[in-house]
């Protein structure tokens, strides 16, 4: 049985500077604590910048409002992509890597100086990107900066700085683990959450190197060192960075799902082998997904596209479907073991819906899987992509994954970081109870509005579609759904930032005493260690409800997927 308290003593040396957390009994290196705080603060700063841009561009695409002029729309759209898709998420992940490689392993931070170097480079890169985009009109090139659209050299340099900084931080993750192992700070295998974060870190190394291959030549080209840069090759390398970057998010998010599930419902993973295998599938197959962006590009064969877009054989999708079973199943068993055993879904009714960590987790899983995952696999199908490429169905898909999924999960996790790492009392708890719902519903409407607009042919990254004069009147309706969703999501975002700021600035400085924030005084983390093998395997605790849920998911998946083939079959013949 796994023990909650670390088994290996932490030899006190001159280098050691740590505290023991009263709630989790984990040892937290003070370097780690400061690094987490710094990275988390930068993450929220970028979220605020990207969020302001989000509000303004959403109010522009909502055709009835149409707020900004074209110049500012495209400029802020560029900014929004960089701040949200890259800066907010990567800063948060770096905080997660510092946490996973030290606190969860009972270990010290072995390379704080290197980690700070990485952090400073990321900060300079991130802020520089914002600055360049705002100052230089030529640098309105979107997040993807497709060659031969040429931005200011500093634009590319800011990408490079940020990426190298992130790479350095990721390397400290591996250093920490190696040192922890060598110093025998933990025995046997790493915890599942660290295993998942390690998957994310390995993917990140690959991703960031590919980013360098794409962006460094673009930088040299913008300086005039290279006369030309082939646009097809740039796209291939850029998406070797851009898409796997989202898979890093995926692996990190799933790790956070496991953590949130344990922190709020006291789960034990149903089967470590099953869950770890799912992460391994990510590791081997998910990076092929960069082909998703090249499906209707000239110059590539059907075989190349089909093999890559399907992650060899949808094996990374299989990984996600495994997690989609194993996490709710673990929660069902844990809740049933507590006596919530009525019917198929009695455990779900009795789940801690008022606990932001739990509601955020559920929102994140539902939006990520039911909207993001299903639409992603469908539009990533080679032929179906012809109906979808660069229409609003695309941002509709990734707003479900990255906003509804990743961001909701990260936000929910923050509420526990504040008492446990910042050691500040969480303020505005009532707001925190509602925030995941507000944000989740808002981002769901954003996605649905975008997807239904895209189905009618509305292009993404387009200031004013009325020029086209072809989109049917129902587009006004779907764009209004998108706009209203954006307002709700931004409200949820403001709630989040307010809770974080008020807690950090006015919250009382104190050691955490509770694992749960609002829904009880018990410690699910502790309870998870008390779940016995008998309880895990007992017949009445088996996750029957989860099995029903995943089969319902599969039916919805099949309906959506096959409907798209039907839609494709109705259009012009093309080959």
């Amino acid at each position, binding site marked *: 049985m796994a023990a909650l308290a670390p088994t290996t003593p932490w030899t006190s040396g001159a280098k050691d500077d740590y505290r023991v957390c009263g709630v989790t009994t984990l040892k937290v290196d003070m370097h780690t604590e400061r690094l987490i705080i710094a990275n988390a603060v930068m993450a929220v700063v970028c979220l605020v910048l990207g969020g302001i841009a989000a509000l303004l561009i959403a109010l522009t695409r909502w055709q009835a409002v149409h707020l900004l002029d074209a110049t500012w729309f495209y400029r802020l759209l560029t900014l929004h992509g960089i701040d949200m898709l890259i800066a907010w998420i990567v800063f948060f992940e770096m905080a997660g890597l510092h946490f996973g490689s030290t606190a969860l392993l009972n270990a010290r931070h072995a390379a704080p100086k290197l980690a700070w170097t990485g952090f400073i480079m990321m900060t300079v890169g991130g802020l520089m990107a914002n600055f360049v985009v705002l100052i230089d009109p030529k640098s309105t090139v979107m997040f993807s900066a497709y060659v031969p659209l040429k931005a200011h050299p500093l634009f590319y340099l800011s990408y490079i700085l940020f990426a190298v900084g992130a790479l350095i931080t990721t390397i400290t993750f591996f250093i920490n683990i190696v040192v922890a192992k060598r110093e025998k700070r933990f025995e046997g295998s790493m915890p599942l959450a660290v295993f998942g974060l390690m998957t994310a870190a390995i993917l990140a190394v690959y991703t960031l190197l590919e980013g360098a291959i794409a962006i460094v030549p673009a930088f040299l080209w913008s300086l005039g060192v290279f006369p030309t840069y082939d646009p097809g090759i740039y796209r291939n390398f850029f998406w070797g960075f851009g898409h796997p970057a989202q898979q890093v998010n995926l692996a990190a998010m799933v790790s956070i799902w496991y953590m949130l599930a344990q922190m709020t419902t006291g789960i034990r993973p149903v089967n470590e082998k099953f869950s770890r295998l799912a992460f391994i599938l990510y590791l081997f197959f998910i990076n092929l997904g960069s082909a998703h962006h090249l499906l209707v590009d000239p110059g590539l064969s059907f075989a190349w596209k089909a093999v890559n877009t399907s992650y060899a054989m949808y094996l990374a999708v299989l990984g996600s479907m495994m997690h989609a*079973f194993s996490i709710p199943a673990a929660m069902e068993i844990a809740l049933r073991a507590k006596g919530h055993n009525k019917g198929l879904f009695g455990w779900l009714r009795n789940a801690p819906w008022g606990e932001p960590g739990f509601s955020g987790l559920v929102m994140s899983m539902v939006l990520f899987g039911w909207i993001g995952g299903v639409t992603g696999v469908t539009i990533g199908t080679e032929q179906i992509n012809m109906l979808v490429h660069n229409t609003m169905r695309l941002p509709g898909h990734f707003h479900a994954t990255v906003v509804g999924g990743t961001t909701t999960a990260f936000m929910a996790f923050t509420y526990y970081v504040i008492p446990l790492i910042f050691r500040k009392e969480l303020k505005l708890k009532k707001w925190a109870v509602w925030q995941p719902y507000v944000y989740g519903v808002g981002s769901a409407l954003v996605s649905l509005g975008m997807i239904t607009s895209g189905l009618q042919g509305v292009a993404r990254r387009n200031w004013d579609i009325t020029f086209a004069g072809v989109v049917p009147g129902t587009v006004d309706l779907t764009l209004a759904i998108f706009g209203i969703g954006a307002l709700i999501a931004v409200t949820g975002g403001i709630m989040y930032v307010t809770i974080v700021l008020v807690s950090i600035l006015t919250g009382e400085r104190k050691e955490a005493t509770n694992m749960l924030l609002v829904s009880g005084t018990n410690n699910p983390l502790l309870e998870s260690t008390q779940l016995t093998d008998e309880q895990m395997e007992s017949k009445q605790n088996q996750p029957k409800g989860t099995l029903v849920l995943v089969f319902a998911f599969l039916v919805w998946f099949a309906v959506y997927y096959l409907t798209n083939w039907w839609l494709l079959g109705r259009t012009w013949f093309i080959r």
Partner: protein
Amino acid sequence: MLAPEKIWWKPLGRMEKTWLTVAFVWCVFLTLMMPLWYFMGKQNVPTETYRTTPAQFNEKVQAFTEQYKIGEDTINGVTLPVVEAPPGSDVYLRASTWQWFPILQFRKGETYRLHISSMDLQHGFSLQPVNINLQILPQYDYVATIVPTSTGEFTIVCNEFCSLGHHTMIGKIIVKEK
């Protein structure tokens, strides 16, 4: 969050096995759909591509326009030639900031080899409302063999950001009965 027991390599439970099998079968089905449609379906992503240069491609567009021009029409206040080539022939469409040139006319049910390339930036060929979308790159001559199956006036929208006038980049394809 906790280290697992020493030995965690345990056989899967019955439900896990069930779900894993079903999910795997679904993944195999998803995989098979693509080659199946490739051989049986009427809508497949074009793969035929040639290297070109903007100047080379532009020459072809001009020659093609001169040879088959049948009239004129305006888009955004700009007068453009309307061009109809006989069925089965090579047809050229030029993308540049911010114009699709020329206006093409097709006959329903006939086959055309549609060449598209860009003179400058990356563009997106988005034919509405039939909703066919292709990525257009400079230096690549992308050939789509198409058969229009409906008649009327169709709009080509550019759906790849191509700097500030991007949203004004509109083109036209006209399809008439045979």
